[in-house]
């Protein structure tokens, strides 16, 4: 009780336990889906390749994450775009 009160006084700071929970959620998504590092790596490579056909992207900053909401997991791709490529790729 005093702990809760204390936390309120301090402005509801997030303790390290909460950080642990958030980090575990992410780690467990990967573990449960049983995606091997191999699969993830190939997906990463293929997506960089496809996107690079249309955009000049910063390949080093390309991020591939799996997020989970209540009912489903989603793949989130995040990449800085440097410029669009002109003309059709074909």
């Amino acid at each position: 009780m005093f702990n809760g009160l204390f936390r309120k006084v301090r402005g509801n700071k997030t303790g390290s336990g909460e950080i642990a929970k958030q980090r575990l959620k992410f780690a467990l998504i990967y573990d449960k889906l049983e995606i091997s590092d191999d699969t993830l790596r190939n997906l990463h490579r293929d997506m960089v390749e496809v996107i690079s056909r249309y955009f000049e992207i910063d390949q080093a900053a390309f991020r591939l994450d799996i997020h989970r909401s209540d009912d489903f997991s989603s793949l989130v791709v995040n990449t800085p775009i440097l410029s669009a490529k002109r003309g059709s790729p074909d």
Partner: protein
Amino acid sequence: MDGRIIVITSGKGGVGKTTATASIGAALALQRKRVAVIDMDIGLRNLDVVMGLENRIIFNVVDAVKGKCKLKQAAIKDRRIDDLFLIPASQSDNKNVLSPKDMVQFGEKLRREFDFVLMDCPAGIERGFENSVAAADEAVVVCTPEVSSVRDADRVIGLLYARSITPKLVVNRIIPEMVEKGDMLSHVDMVDVLSIELVGLVPMDDHVLISTNTGIPLVLQKKSKAGEAFQRIAMRINGATDLPIEVPQSQDRFWKKIGSKLGLGK
């Protein structure tokens, strides 16, 4: 470079091998050594989450050993400490995908790239242990002051001697108050039973859990007694062999000492 390969082992699970590996590795890197820490627990990787690097894994130790990638590609650079690298375990394989012979070869590559290589050995004395020990020059045995842990440590020490490795002992999770009351094995008792050289004494410390919660290295947490103990262990491993071993003390005892110095009774 002609790096040293050190296996961190214990026999029993849950005594602090992974924390010890991450902390000693970080401390050595802070002493400007090039360090690789390797998670040898294939199928149950954890060193990555303890170090807060779980989102950066692309290649793993199985890929590196099998030649699927270069050593440099599998070594993930730490976020906070330069010269510290993690080679994570594979989560989807099992321990039999690697052999001790593979590891000896891999060890040669590692020695060329790093000053120190720390192998985080899985619990048990089966294949995972064999693989972790195969390339090692030295060993650190982590043991807590519990009968089960000491017994398993003794077994592992025997197996290491059989491989011509003379291990050193880290006693972890010491609760000084309990030792003083006589309710916990003291490090003296443990050294006596195991007859092995001591390399450090680590007190029980809440900062350890906070460190693994956040993925921030223990040795970077100010005021962490365990963090300080691991730093001294790293200094001893790194050549400061005459650095005295500090025995964890209770606050209570500290005030009593001051009291007796001032001549205030017992």
